[in-house]
């Protein structure tokens, strides 16, 4: 069995009085896509910065692709690609110049070839000579992804890759990320979109308050924490409180779901516990997320 692509052991990172990462233990096996799922402020972005050497841990150890960080960070970064949350492309220069600069930064031997390959991957070959500010939002996002892949990295860090994008563009990006998975590239993807994690990740780690509180395959996590079926009960607030009390007394887990409550493990409910009017559906990762983090998900 090969060594994990990423290994963090008891990593702590504080910013003044705030502990952003709190004793984090995380291993990402080679060749999988791990979704790091957590609410805003959970420590996902700090974890990403720790992995790129842009933040130094106060304590603990970090190994990336066999390189110890921060001492051997440059070697690690040469073998990984990073797709940031924010668009930081050079907007005044052309698509191909953006890629060529990063090919040089990654010390790629054949820059024109790498640029051609990245353009093809991002499906931007016919826009190669256009300035970035002439591209649509979706094209820019694809370029950002291609920029992080211009040197054919073994490991890719995706920091909220589709945040703020409309559904069509999000789907385009998911296809590209899925292609990467198919090629055996190891992916660590931070996200707070449940659907994104469900669709792309082989495994999901739920992070909150700087540490991992649950980890597993999405289906396993759902089964373990939310059972097979969830019942959403819609009623007046007083009635909802009553339903909640009865469900919890029966050992079922309940979470708020907007104007309703969601009773998880509804398949185990005794007769009469769930009203006929409740909407029954398959339990989801969102149920697990909200249950574990106490946060509403998107």
């Amino acid at each position, binding site marked *: 069995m090969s060594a994990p692509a990423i290994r963090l052991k008891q990593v702590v*990172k504080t*910013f003044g009085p705030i502990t952003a990462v709190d004793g984090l233990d995380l291993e990402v096996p080679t*060749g999988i896509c791990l979704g790091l799922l957590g609410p805003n402020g959970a420590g996902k972005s*700090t974890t990403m*910065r720790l992995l*790129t*050497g*842009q*933040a*130094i841990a106060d304590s603990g150890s970090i190994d990336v*692709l066999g390189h110890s960080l921060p001492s051997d*960070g*440059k*070697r690690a*970064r*040469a*073998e990984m690609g*990073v797709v*940031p949350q*924010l668009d*930081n492309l*050079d907007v*005044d*220069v052309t698509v191909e*110049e953006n890629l*060529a*600069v*990063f090919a*040089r*930064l*990654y*010390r*790629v031997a054949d820059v024109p070839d790498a640029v051609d390959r990245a353009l093809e991957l991002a499906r931007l070959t016919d826009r190669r000579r256009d300035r970035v500010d002439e591209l649509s939002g979706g094209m820019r996002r694809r370029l950002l992804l291609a*920029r*992080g892949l211009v*040197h*054919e*990295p*073994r490991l890719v860090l995706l920091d909220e890759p589709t945040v703020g994008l409309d559904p069509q563009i999000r789907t385009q990006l998911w296809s590209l990320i899925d292609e990467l998975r*198919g*090629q*055996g*590239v190891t992916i660590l993807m931070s996200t707070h979109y449940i659907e994104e994690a469900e669709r792309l990740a082989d495994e999901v780690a739920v992070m909150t308050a700087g540490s991992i509180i649950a980890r597993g395959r999405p289906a396993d996590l759902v089964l373990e924490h939310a059972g097979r079926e969830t019942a959403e009960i819609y009623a007046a607030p007083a009635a909802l409180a009553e339903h909640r009390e009865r469900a919890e007394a029966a050992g079922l887990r309940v979470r708020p779901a907007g104007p309703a409550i969601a009773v998880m493990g509804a398949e185990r409910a005794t007769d009469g516990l769930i009203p006929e009017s409740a909407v029954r559906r398959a339990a989801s990762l969102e149920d697990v997320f909200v249950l574990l983090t106490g946060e509403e998900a998107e």
Partner: protein
Amino acid sequence: MSEAEQTAVAEPQRIHVRRLDPAAIGAVMSREVANFKTFWKGTTFSSVLEPIVYLLAFGLGLGATIVGDVGGVPYVQFVGTGMVATAVIFSSVLPAMFGTFVKHHFQRTYDAILATPVDVEELVTAEMLWIGLRAGFYGSAPLLVTIGFGLDPAWGMLLVPVFAFVTACGFAAFGITVAASAEKIDQFNYVTTLAVTPLFLVAGTFFPIDGLPEGLQTLANLNPLYHLVELVRGGAFGFETVDIFHFGFLLVMALGMWRLAISRMQKRLID
């Protein structure tokens, strides 16, 4: 995952990692070049035109009416050779301050670069060298203009771009240091008013500093621009032994500011 798919992953890229890797510095500079190609016309226009305006106003205006010559040098040539220092400071400190701040805070360019095998030392060095090269080039423009106003070309002038480059590197590093220390872009006004303007006024560009009170003369001797002005005039009118000291001063200033800029940017960019 199938074995075929597993093998689709590229072989690990082993790069030669060392401090101040020329490939890393060159790559960062290539980004600057790519961007510069989009705005070089405006920069070149202002960098060349500004000294001409100063020369016309001070050299010809003052020279024709109030000051005939300084130590036997026609005033227009005295100012023209001094204007090199003015061009150097304005084309190094200001782009370094504003450019660094914008790239860090607004464009997030440094986040992208530091996610590649480039470290802060290489990043700052590349930024400084690029601004130094540009300012070395533009800083020499006033000398060419002054030749048009009757200054005789001299072999020593060929060294002026080198002097301008070294000085510009120092001031670029100073600008980067300021940007790394500032919380808001408005704070640059203090630096411009309290540092840049006095430095350019008391550099011996418009009047010889030996006419100043003794205390101010001592301060002027600590002004890198004064040493640059002396070197440029040495190049134009003949070097003296003391010019070695002037060049040494500029080298030490550039090296000191370079290390300071790296230290400040390290604190700013790495959490």
